[in-house]
């Protein structure tokens, strides 16, 4: 069990050390030392927590705390914290002690002193009351709606989270700005999803709340984290009014202890709190209302042109340019600067007269305590012109009197317009015509065409159905294929001798067959057999790639044997060659019947040999 505790404490120590290391990067801030308790009333046997917090540093060791009468003191450990609020970095270290009450009575915890960098810092003393039996419930002055179940939140929630609404003054004049602030106090709890304050403010005009600031604050010996929302408001009607109450919505995060039975750490407060689990409860916090009296502005000594400005202001009056031509615009600037209600600041401006065409003044800037009005005037006549004295009056609530500020008069020089230049009428775009009028265009069909254009026959077929077009397409599309095939055949004829011989033999066969048929018809026996002999020689020579002149009847068998020629055809070839030889010497023996017989033999030979692949 001891080993287990040591292990867990080591892990926590490492985490704290890591937190401390990261805070070293934070810029140092002002040092302070505060003591706080999480409760100030407790029963005998209960434990409260004493926090000794050092702001502006994290390099402070465990302070030595003397024994406190009526309490058992035990050091729990350090807790470091780095916060960045509105870009400002602050760091702190809190050393936590558990005080367990042993005797009833009223005690003062502290004051505690600590030396840091040569200075001694001392906290205030915290009064604590220890009672017998149960702790009485505290007096509730503020309400917290939708509270978490009481058994899940230690102590009274009203004391640990509440809001206040305060104003600097409770008695103000009409239009007088008064700062107000809403403070959210949180102790021993965490809040998140905090919404901006809301409150009823009839008869008052309220500005938006600024971004809240966060700071620690000790109240009645209890340390609170305070979230401060600042704003300002002014009364619009005299009378006694109530402002608020202010409400703030948010979620409270509270520890709910886990139900553990027989745990090894049941007897240790530190581990009891360590193993608590967090629960979120929505809350609606409500402050006490604020009573404000709004006084009417005094009628006594009220200036004639007073327009309602309340505060403390300065006034300026300028004109640019100071040298212009007739018809050119001149701008007058009225600047009101100071503390107070700028919404109530107004000026009359220059009035229309014979020398100037005058436009209404308008606000061009209202921020950071400054309100600027601009008025455009156009000189009508040349010469030295004077812009009259102008004044601005306001009521100063701090002095309870009206103040009148006067400026001017101002001089400007108005020159003649150029000869060619006529007087320009310039309209101030902000006062006269702020938006361009959109031109409305007419809509209709465009006019007819003047000529028929490209005329076509309606009856003409579209190209994809036109036989002429399709024929041309077929030819064109076949051309590349034809060229490709011819080139392929030509290449083969060049490179493949067998193929070339066969092709040539076939061509010769067809050629000689045609010629022999003519000779047969003419019955010229000599020429016929001479032709048969040459045709057979040429055909066999090309077909079997042998010299044609060497082929005779005597060598036919030797030359053509072994070339897959049927014996009958081989005999027929020999016979035709013999007939040709005989015809040379005994021409009279060959009549037409013999010639036809030779021709048919020749046809049979060629037909058979064409089927043979040589």
């Amino acid at each position, binding site marked *: 069990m001891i080993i287990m505790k040591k292990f867990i404490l080591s892990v926590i120590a490492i985490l704290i050390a890591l937190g401390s290391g990261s805070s070293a990067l934070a810029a140092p801030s002002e040092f302070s030392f505060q003591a706080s308790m999480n409760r100030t009333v407790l029963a005998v046997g209960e434990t409260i927590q004493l926090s000794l917090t050092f702001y502006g540093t994290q390099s402070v060791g465990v302070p030595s705390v003397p024994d406190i009468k009526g309490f058992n003191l035990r050091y729990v450990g350090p807790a470091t914290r780095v916060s960045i609020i509105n870009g400002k970095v602050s760091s702190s270290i809190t050393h936590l002690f558990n005080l367990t009450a042993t005797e009833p009575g009223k005690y003062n915890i502290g004051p505690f002193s600590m030396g840091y960098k040569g200075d001694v810092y001392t906290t205030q003393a915290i009064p604590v009351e220890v009672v017998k039996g149960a702790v009485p419930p505290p007096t509730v002055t503020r309400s917290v709606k939708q509270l978490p179940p009481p058994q899940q939140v230690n102590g009274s929630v009203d004391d640990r989270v509440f809001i206040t609404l305060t104003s600097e003054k409770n008695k103000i004049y009409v239009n007088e700005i008064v700062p107000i602030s809403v403070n959210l106090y949180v102790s021993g709890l965490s809040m998140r999803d905090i919404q901006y304050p809301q409150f009823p403010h009839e008869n008052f005009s309220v500005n938006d709340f600024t971004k809240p600031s966060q700071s620690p604050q000790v109240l009645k010996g209890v340390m609170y984290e305070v979230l401060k929302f600042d704003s300002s408001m002014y009364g619009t009607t005299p009378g006694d009014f109530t402002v608020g109450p202010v409400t703030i919505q948010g979620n409270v995060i509270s520890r709910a202890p886990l139900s553990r039975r027989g745990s090894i750490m049941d007897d240790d407060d530190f581990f009891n709190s360590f193993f608590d689990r967090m629960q979120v409860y929505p809350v609606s916090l409500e402050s006490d209302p604020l009573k404000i009296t709004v006084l009417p502005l005094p009628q006594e000594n009220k200036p004639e042109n007073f327009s309602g400005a309340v505060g403390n202001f300065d006034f300026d009056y300028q004109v640019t340019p100071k040298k212009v031509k007739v018809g050119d615009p001149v701008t007058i600037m009225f600047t009101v600067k100071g503390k107070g209600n700028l919404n109530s600041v107004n000026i009359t401006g220059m009035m229309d007269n014979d020398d100037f065409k005058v436009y209404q003044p308008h606000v061009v800037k209202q921020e950071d305590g400054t309100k600027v009005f601009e008025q455009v005037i156009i000189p009508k006549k040349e010469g030295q012109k004077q812009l009259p004295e102008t004044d601005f009056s306001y009521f100063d609530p701090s002095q309870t009197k009206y103040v009148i500020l006067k400026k001017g008069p101002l001089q400007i020089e108005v020159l003649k317009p150029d000869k060619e230049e006529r007087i320009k009428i310039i309209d101030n775009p902000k006062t006269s015509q702020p938006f361009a009028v959109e031109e409305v265009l007419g*809509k209709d069909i465009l006019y*007819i*065409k003047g000529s028929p254009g*490209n005329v076509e026959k309606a*009856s*003409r077929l*579209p*190209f994809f159905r036109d036989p002429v077009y399709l024929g041309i397409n077929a030819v064109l599309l076949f051309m590349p294929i034809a060229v490709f095939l011819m080139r392929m055949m030509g290449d083969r004829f060049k490179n493949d001798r067998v193929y070339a011989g066969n092709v040539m033999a076939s061509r010769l066969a067809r050629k000689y067959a045609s010629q022999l048929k003519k000779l047969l018809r003419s019955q010229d026996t000599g020429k016929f057999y001479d032709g048969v002999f040459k045709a057979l020689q040429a055909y066999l020579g090309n077909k079997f790639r042998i010299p044609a002149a060497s082929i005779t009847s005597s060598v036919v068998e030797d030359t053509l044997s072994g070339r897959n020629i049927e014996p009958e055809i081989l005999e027929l070839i020999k016979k035709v060659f013999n007939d040709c030889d005989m015809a040379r010497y005994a021409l009279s023996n060959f009549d037409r019947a013999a010639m036809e017989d030779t021709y048919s033999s020749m046809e049979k030979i060629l037909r058979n040999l064409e089927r043979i692949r040589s």
Partner: protein
Amino acid sequence: MRMVKQNIRCLLIIFAALLCQGASADSVSDFSRANEMYAARNYDGALDVYSGIESSGEVSGNLFYNIGNCYAKKGMYGKAIVNYERALALSPQDTEARANYKFVLSEAGNPREISPVTGVRSYILKLFSALTLNGLTVTFSIVLFILIACAAIAAYPGGPRQIFLPAALVFLIAVVISGVALKDRIDGLGRDAIIVAKNVEVKFEPFAQSTTYFDLEEGDKVRINDTKDGWSRVIRSDGRQGWVAADTFEII
């Protein structure tokens, strides 16, 4: 080589003869006369003369444009849309015809298309929208010819395959794209129609007593799928089909 040049010259002359034809003197005269009637706001008279030219078999984009204008002026937006569609089919780059077409469409309440074309197909159709049907056919033929030539050269042993094989692939894609566009045009040829009557009832069966399935508005574009006894089966943009009387629409 000289023979090849002569052949190509002949083919070009034939193409030119196929593409170009002039208007007859009568047509030109009638066209001017109809224009004068239009200028005098005699739209019915102008329509008669323009229709006479159309009946004579001589048509042009300008003729259909002027007919469309006459109908638009008469407030007959369905017939105007048909004629602007015809004008654009013959002269797709006529910006005036396109402007009037859009104006009349908006006046007619932006009637429905046959089927809204989306995705890649819409890009393809847009790519070739500036071409007439014949122009698209010629484009397809040229691209196909180049594809076959490139493929033949690439397939030839020892040929410059490194250049012509990628070129063949490119032209294969071009053939597919132009083929898609051409098919779309051919599919609609003689079948796409515009409703020219107001509030046309589309029936389940091809006779007047049949139950009405849905209605079509003047200017709606439909595709004719079948014709029977003076009734035509049409399909509209959402795919629904039904029968309408043949005199309620005009083929583009």
